[in-house]
């Protein structure tokens, strides 16, 4: 029961700081804006989910990071951890409680954002949104958000200071989202693989590129969307059709990408906990 007590205590704390309200409201507003701004360009809401997915991959982690990076490191820096662990809480129960609150906030933020997008699409688009596609988008986006929050909490549990937690979380975001599948023209995984392929005697096959590209939460998320959200989409949208007829590489397989996402969601917090379990506190 102590995990529940830690989680409840923690949730009260972050809820009253209005940070949670700010994050949830900001993402909901951004999701609504994405759809409000595109209703006249794309008559089918499914096309706009392409833009929403980019918002999820690149903006949502940045909104969640401030809530997550101090989850454990903040308590260690303030000494508040002695309050929690001076009581008969195991380190596992404490870590679980902390993860639960952050994961809960991430799930609610994501689900609400997608729900708001659906509502805006329903109200403003020429064609009604497909509930099945939005459900799938909501589920996938939530899974991605949980994976990223797991990474952030793991970083927070692995370090003893606020500054290290912040650097670690920002670094994890840039590596796993912005660099791996990011919008930056030069600083991304593709250019890095090109550089490797340009070395004498080194070749990087398409299947290897697909495999490496799928290994981050954002990569797996983007690889799952064509199959589960955009397949057989109405309208003739090049952005969605670009994924049709992709090669049969392992890196594009939905089951493999689902496994990658699950691996991050479970594996990152586990690694964070194992580091925290052996940390010297005080």
């Amino acid at each position, binding site marked *: 029961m102590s995990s529940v007590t830690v989680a409840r205590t923690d949730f009260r704390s*972050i809820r009253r700081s209005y940070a949670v309200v700010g994050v949830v409201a900001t993402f909901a507003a951004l999701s609504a804006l994405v759809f409000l701004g595109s209703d006249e360009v794309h008559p089918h809401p499914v096309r706009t989910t392409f833009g929403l997915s980019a918002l999820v991959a690149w903006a949502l982690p940045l909104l969640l990071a401030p809530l997550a990076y101090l989850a454990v490191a903040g308590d260690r820096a303030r000494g508040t951890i002695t*309050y929690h662990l001076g009581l008969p809480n195991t380190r596992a129960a404490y870590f679980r409680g902390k993860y639960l609150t952050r994961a809960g906030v991430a799930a609610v933020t994501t689900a609400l954002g997608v729900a708001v997008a659906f509502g805006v699409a329903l109200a403003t688009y020429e064609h009604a949104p497909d509930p099945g596609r939005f459900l799938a988008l909501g589920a996938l986006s939530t899974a991605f958000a949980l994976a990223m929050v797991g990474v952030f909490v793991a970083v927070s549990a692995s370090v003893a200071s606020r500054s290290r937690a912040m650097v670690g979380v920002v670094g994890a975001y840039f590596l796993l989202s912005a660099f791996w599948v990011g919008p930056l023209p030069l600083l991304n995984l593709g250019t890095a693989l090109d550089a490797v392929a340009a070395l004498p005697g080194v070749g990087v096959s398409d299947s290897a590129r697909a495999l490496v590209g799928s290994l981050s939460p954002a990569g797996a998320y983007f690889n799952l969307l064509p199959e589960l959200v955009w397949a057989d989409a109405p309208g003739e949208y090049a952005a969605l059709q670009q994924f049709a007829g992709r090669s049969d590489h392992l890196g594009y397989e939905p089951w493999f990408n689902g496994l990658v996402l699950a691996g991050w969601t479970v594996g990152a917090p586990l690694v964070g906990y194992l580091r925290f379990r052996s940390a010297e*506190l005080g």
Partner: protein
Amino acid sequence: MSAVDIDGLTKRYGDVTAVSELSLSVDRGEVFGFLGPNGAGKSTTINILLGFLDPTAGEVSVLGTDVTRDPQSVKARVGLLPEAFEPVPNLTGREHVAAAVETKGSDDDPDALLDRVGLAPEDASRPADDYSTGMFQRMALAVALVGEPDLLVLDEPSAGLDPNGVRLVREIVREEADRGAAVFFSSHVLDEVERVSDRVGILQDGELTAVNSVENLRDDLGMGSVVSATVDAVPDLDPIRAVDAVTDVSADGSTVRVACAAPGAKMAALRRLDDRATVADVTIEESSLEDLFEAYTTDRPEAGDGDAGDGATGPGAGAESATGDEPSAATAGGDRT
């Protein structure tokens, strides 16, 4: 069974030794004052007691349980008031106590505990972030008292408290000890420690330099007391200097000051002075724990070298005079083999 049993505890951080070969025990119902200058290793010792840190060497048993093997069992029976921690942001004082009650599975009434430590209901319902240091200490003490712990570990419990608060802490500590709880009491307010502790341990550079009752430490150091007598005319002081256990005699105007290392020397010196002059007034000043602390932590005395061994194993073990030669071998006087 002791409440706290530390045997040969050593904690190193790389090349730095924070605690070295520390051995001591604290009995149930005993108030043990744990003293030392900043960086002496007090907090490290307390953190090991609670399982926050692992010892490099040695054994630490709390309430009969090896804390490195089963910290959960230990924490369920310990009440902790940590030093220098901040509250959970945006949580009220009452919610801090209520969460502790829930975690410990006790049937305590949070309001009753907060009332016991003197935190007003209207303050208890405010976020603890807004508390003054004294109010925060009261709340933290209420958290420590949850579940009638068998061991209270209080790290600087009087910090930031007003005199009424300090007195309240002293009363609560005595009440808890009377209930049978052991109290491990770390403080820089030496007067407070002296008033409330059955024994004190003085830690210096990670080593236990003395552990005993304040009275025994005072006797061991020959810092017993100073008799100040106002006389009509200062006589020849040599006969007074010749009294056994008189360590120093001086005169300042019409006041004669006689330093006595043993309780019996006071009356003997006073009688001899009274034989030679008319004594109009007498005051006796006992050397304070502050004097002892200074003596043990600035210029380690020969006389105190054996104290750690004699007093380290409980209130009864230190009653005899210091005899040991190895200050860090604090188990020498006692009940361990």
